[in-house]
């Protein structure tokens, strides 16, 4: 009996597959944070005055704020002066892929994302962010023909300053929260997407983030603007090498979905989760939000398997009438990982609808919290929300929590919430093993069955990747 108990506790402990480090010459900003560092970052990026002002304004505001602690869980205090706020794997921005350090390109190959266009996954345009710098965007020219702009954030600042200026901070203002404010001060690079009116983006757009440098924070900033009647599907993937110390990742994603436009944003988050004793791992503190206008739709799908700490709530502000918001999430925690994640659906317009399906899987000693807000504004006549939150526990040392908050200021609006908690039992495990499956395969099958509904929402290649990731992350939680 004892043995099998520990078997069950073990299936989730596997080595982190992406945990290699790339040896490249790295350029850092001086450690710590002050106005000079911000000027340094801005200078390195050759930024216009208005952007430096935005950063400084954010920084000054950030200094008046205190780190929030309502997160369900605990983590070591973050020493904001012990972090490099800018690191880049080369001295000056590369003009083409040929100028990129071959070691960096090799890293992407190891991750399975060849950058060179001839090798690129067909139909997927990739913008890869390595530490603070964008490495190269594939398929850029082809997209440009249709008027689609897809490039690094930094490039957009120079090429399309009017668009950046208009929308930067329009959905997530720099005052929004502590981490978003920090990001607004120090963000290094990220992705920029603009889909013109009436254009359906012909391929999946994808960015790949990787933290490589030691003690470096990554503060990317993504801005997606889908003009009227346009549509786009955007994929975000991330990894970081194994480190003893914690790495900070505080990102912002802002999405503007104009009238009758449609945006699908999918994330497979695989930051280093720390070792099995909870040492190291990425602190993933992210603000993601979209503004959804009349008859438009924003759909968030996330598979969160990595990070020591996950703190993120991809949200929809359903401002226009008939706007739709969706949130589909799988969050898997193992060992000492802590995830506090969910969504906010803010219904402002009439007939707005939102759907939330959250699947939390906890193993080891981890803690997995769903936190959600559904808010019906006074004008949200006939607005409708349906939420379903399911938790699956593996072993008995982990925790699952559901914290749904509902606020309703319009009596014609409806909110439905349903939550379940289940457990993989020793009996289930034995039954499957009696049929020849290893404990890991058994848990994998049950877990995949549990989150099947969400996996189906991911683009196919991503779904396969996500399924594998879940398998890998579960290794050692049993058997």
């Amino acid at each position: 009996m004892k043995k099998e108990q520990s078997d069950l506790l073990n299936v989730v402990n596997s080595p982190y597959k992406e945990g290699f480090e790339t040896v490249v010459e790295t350029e850092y900003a001086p450690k710590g944070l002050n106005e000079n560092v911000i000027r340094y970052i801005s200078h390195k990026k050759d930024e216009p005055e208005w952007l430096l002002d935005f950063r400084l304004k954010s920084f000054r505001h950030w200094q008046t704020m205190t780190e929030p602690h309502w997160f369900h869980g605990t983590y070591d205090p973050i020493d904001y002066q012990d972090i490099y706020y800018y690191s880049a794997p080369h001295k000056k921005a590369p003009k083409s892929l040929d100028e990129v350090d071959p070691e960096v390109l090799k890293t992407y190959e190891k991750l399975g994302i060849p950058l060179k266009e001839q090798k690129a996954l067909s139909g997927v345009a990739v913008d890869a962010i390595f530490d603070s710098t964008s490495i190269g965007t594939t398929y850029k020219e082809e997209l440009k023909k249709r008027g689609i702009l897809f490039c690094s954030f930094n490039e957009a600042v120079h090429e399309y300053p009017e668009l950046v200026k208009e929308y930067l901070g329009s959905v997530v203002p720099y005052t929004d929260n502590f981490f978003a404010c920090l990001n607004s001060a120090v963000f290094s690079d990220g992705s920029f997407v603009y889909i013109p009116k009436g254009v359906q983006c012909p391929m999946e757009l994808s960015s790949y983030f990787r933290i490589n440098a030691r003690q470096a924070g990554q503060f990317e900033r993504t801005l997606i603007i889908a003009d009227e009647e346009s549509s786009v599907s955007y994929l975000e993937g991330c990894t970081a090498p194994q480190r003893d110390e914690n790495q900070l990742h505080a990102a912002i994603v802002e999405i503007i979905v104009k009238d009758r436009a449609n945006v699908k944003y999918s994330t497979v988050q695989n930051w280093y989760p720390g070792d099995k004793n909870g040492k190291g791992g990425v602190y993933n503190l992210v603000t993601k939000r979209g503004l959804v206008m009349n008859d438009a739709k924003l759909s968030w799908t996330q598979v969160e398997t990595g990070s020591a700490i996950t703190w993120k709530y991809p949200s929809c502000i359903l401002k226009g009438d008939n706007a739709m918001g969706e949130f589909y999430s799988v969050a898997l925690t193992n060992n000492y990982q802590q995830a506090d994640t969910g969504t906010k659906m803010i219904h402002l317009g009439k007939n707005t609808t939102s759907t939330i399906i959250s699947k939390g899987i906890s193993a080891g000693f981890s803690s997995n919290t769903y936190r959600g807000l559904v808010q019906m504004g006074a004008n949200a006549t006939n607005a409708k929300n349906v939420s379903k939150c399911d938790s699956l526990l593996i072993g008995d040392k982990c925790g699952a929590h559901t914290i749904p908050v509902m606020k309703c200021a319009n009596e014609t609006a409806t909110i439905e919430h349903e939550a379940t908690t289940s457990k993989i039992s020793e009996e289930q495990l034995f039954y499957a093993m009696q049929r020849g499956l290893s404990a890991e395969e058994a848990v994998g099958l049950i877990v995949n069955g549990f989150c099947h509904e969400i996996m189906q929402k991911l683009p196919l290649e991503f779904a396969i990747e996500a399924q594998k990731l879940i398998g890998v992350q579960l290794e050692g939680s049993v058997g």
Partner: protein
Amino acid sequence: MTALLEIKDLHANVGNKEILKGLNLTIKAGEVHAIMGPNGCGKSTLSAVITGNPAYTVTAGEILFKGEDLLKMTPDERANKGVFLAFQHPIELPGVGLAQFLKAALNAKRKANGEEPIDAVQFMKYMNVRATALGISNEMLKRPVNVGFSGGEKKRLETFQMAMLEPDFCILDEMDSGLDVDALKVVGQGVSVMREPKRSFMIITHHDDLLQYVTPDQVSIMRDGQIIKTGGPELVEQVEASGYDNF
């Protein structure tokens, strides 16, 4: 005939309570061996211990399967060596489709034997033949394992799983209880067609219902954690006529 399974002086506990108290049993290759005994004498415990259920602790004795020490193996290793248990109370696996489950199980076995995984088309053919024979509909194959099935349907599905995995040693724990006449016939015939010189069966039962379809070569009577008598099919009649008190 050589011994497929040899159990010597087996003692096993659940918690601190001893259930199997020095049990001896030999089952030969190709043999159908019925085990009969009163409620609570330890029949299901025996099947659990043979298959390695971690809820039971073996305190003494040994189990040899094809000459190998079964007690050293994990439940999946035992299964992939050819030990199959049709559960008295099958367990539900929500979200795991039956066909998907069986494909994974079949491939686990093939992997253990150093074979390539079965391809999807072949698997469908392989499965459909067996499903049809046991009256398992396509709809049932898509449903999650054991979830929402009636007691009788679950038993039929256990037989189906057995037919899919073609094990060398099949333990049927009260396969015949709770079955209607027609289902009993389907299950009985399903078992009887699987009978072959290399495959043995251990049929745990209280009645001669199933045994009418699969005549046992040997019958053992179990009481209070031990096998107290082994003989031919005539023992079944004795039990049916006058219970266990005369043994």
